[in-house]
């Protein structure tokens, strides 16, 4: 005969009412204890019950620093920005605090700077820890803050340099584009050949052969050369005199030439201006045509509706010259 297994009752049903109440109270107390612990833990991490020491700084550009921005000393988070105030000269007065236990890091030679967690991350106030031999900064003390350049300012400063660099790279690239490796190679070969030729010519000269060799090593040839050079000098003197006589004329020609150049430049400039204007002319004409067409359409439209249509449409007898008008 099959026998149904008897279900086991929860132990709570075996407990008396008083025990049940105690058990429930224990759970409530446990939950309260966990809550208290959580709050205490949070209060500790949030430094809720820590004493704070307030400091002040003045800035020209907060660079995104705001209330609740963090304050670091030597890479440790030590406090937060608490408030801002802007004076009549648009200077920003910054108030921040550090927790009491970190006060000893801030000394008279401490100074701050504005920084970011990344190039465009959150701004924070980074304070350099002072020397231990310096006195601690008291509550309400001023800390100098160095404002670094903003990324925009940095970019603005770097922009000309980058542009110069870019331009230089472009020039170098263009230069390199024009260099043909084959040409360099053949140039090198030509240079080597030219040097060899030069060497051979030098040897010929040293041997007193050829016109230059004879000129250098043959006394008769040297005399001829001296006479020729003297004659050339006399000719050059004569040419110089002629050129001196031509001086005023050349000056005049130069003046005319300069004036012509200036005139040409002015003409070019004027032509550029005229050309620019002329380039705009077709557009102006086209726009005028459109405007006139629009106006005509509008007028025609107006003339087709009352009361103008009646006023403008001539009567049949007005379309023909009255008989007897002519002599």
């Amino acid at each position, binding site marked *: 005969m099959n026998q149904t297994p008897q279900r086991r009752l929860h132990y709570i049903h075996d407990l008396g009412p008083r025990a049940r109440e105690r058990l429930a109270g224990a759970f409530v107390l446990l939950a309260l204890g966990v809550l208290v612990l959580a709050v205490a833990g949070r209060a500790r991490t949030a430094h809720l019950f820590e004493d704070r020491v307030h400091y002040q700084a003045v800035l020209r550009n907060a660079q995104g620093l705001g209330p609740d921005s963090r304050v670091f000393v030597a890479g440790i988070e030590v406090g937060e920005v608490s408030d801002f105030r802007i004076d009549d000269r648009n200077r920003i007065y910054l108030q921040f605090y550090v927790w009491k236990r970190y006060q000893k890091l801030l000394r008279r030679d401490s100074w701050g700077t504005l920084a970011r967690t990344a190039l465009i991350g959150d701004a924070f106030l980074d304070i350099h820890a002072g020397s231990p031999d310096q006195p601690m900064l008291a509550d309400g003390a001023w800390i100098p803050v160095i404002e670094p350049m903003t990324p925009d300012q940095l970019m603005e400063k770097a922009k000309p340099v980058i542009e110069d660099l870019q331009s230089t790279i472009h020039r170098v690239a263009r230069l390199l584009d024009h260099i043909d490796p084959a040409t360099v190679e053949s140039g090198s070969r030509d240079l080597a050949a030219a040097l060899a030729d030069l060497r051979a010519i030098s040897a010929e000269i040293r041997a007193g052969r050829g016109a230059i060799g004879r000129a250098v090593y043959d006394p008769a040839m040297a005399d001829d050369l001296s006479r020729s050079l003297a004659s050339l000098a006399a000719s050059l003197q004569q040419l110089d005199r002629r050129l001196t006589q031509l001086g005023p004329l050349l000056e005049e020609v130069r003046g005319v030439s300069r004036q012509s150049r200036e005139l040409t430049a002015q003409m070019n400039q004027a032509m550029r201006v005229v050309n620019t204007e002329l380039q705009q002319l077709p557009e102006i004409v086209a726009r005028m045509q459109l405007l006139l067409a629009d106006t005509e359409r509008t007028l025609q439209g107006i003339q087709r509706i009352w009361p103008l249509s009646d006023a403008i449409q*001539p009567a049949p007898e007005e379309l023909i010259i009255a008989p007897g008008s002519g002599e």
Partner: protein
Amino acid sequence: MTTRLALIATLLLLAACVSTPDRRPRDLIEAEQQLGQGTRAFRNDDYRSAAALFRRALDYYRSVDDAEGQARALINLAETALAVDDRHAAHQHLAALTRLSPRLPQTGLAPRIGLLEARLALREGRADEAARLLDGLLARLPEDRRRPEDPLYQALLLRRAEAALAGPTPADAEPRLQPLLPLADRGRLAPEMQARLLRLQAELLLLEDRPDAACAQLEQALAVARQSRRRPAIAAALEALAAQSRHQGRLREAAELLERALPVRSRLLDQAALRRDLESLLALYRELGDGEAERRIQATLARLPAQGPARP
């Protein structure tokens, strides 16, 4: 509240006044406007503009094969040609009208075309032919138009009287003018018609050898023409007065009248009439022995373009 209601009522009334837009083709409206503007230009003696406008309208009507429109434009062109005494052009326009005539039975323009033919014949000295044409037109004129108040009937009668005076039977002129006299007395004739009537009456009075009465009629014609500012009528009255003064031996007065007619003729493009006036004036100054005036007129004549019809 009352003001607002009044405003709304006004707007509703205005909206009710709006007629349907003129939906005819734009070219047709333009052609009609050209005819209207040309007619106004003609009345202002601006024959050049008038002819240009009529020609443009004619081009349009030809392009849509509109016979009645073409006829209107051609009639206006023929009137303009006659105004400047361009007889060649007048012949051409009338020939074109003759070709169109079979297509114009219902338009009522035939008497008008006939009147133009008669005027051209008169201008060319074919008075008999003009009289015959005008008699035919008057006979065929519908009954409802045979009223003295009808401008076409008035014009036909006046031209018929003119043809009679230019022909061998000038006595026929008077009965033609009779129906118009009551209207003239009441001032119901158009100024140019009245001026012409007065000039024709003056001619009749001259035939009756009553020069003083004729002069009075001509003075009256001049006054009517001047009052209406119609240059052709003014010039015609001045010329008629000058002719009468000369006929009566008042040479200096005739010269003065013709001198007054010159600027009027100069304003018109009728160079043939201007030349005719200048030549008459030259002859007068020669008779008067006024050498300086003679030289001045000769110089003016020399400046005129070569003889030939004026082209508007």
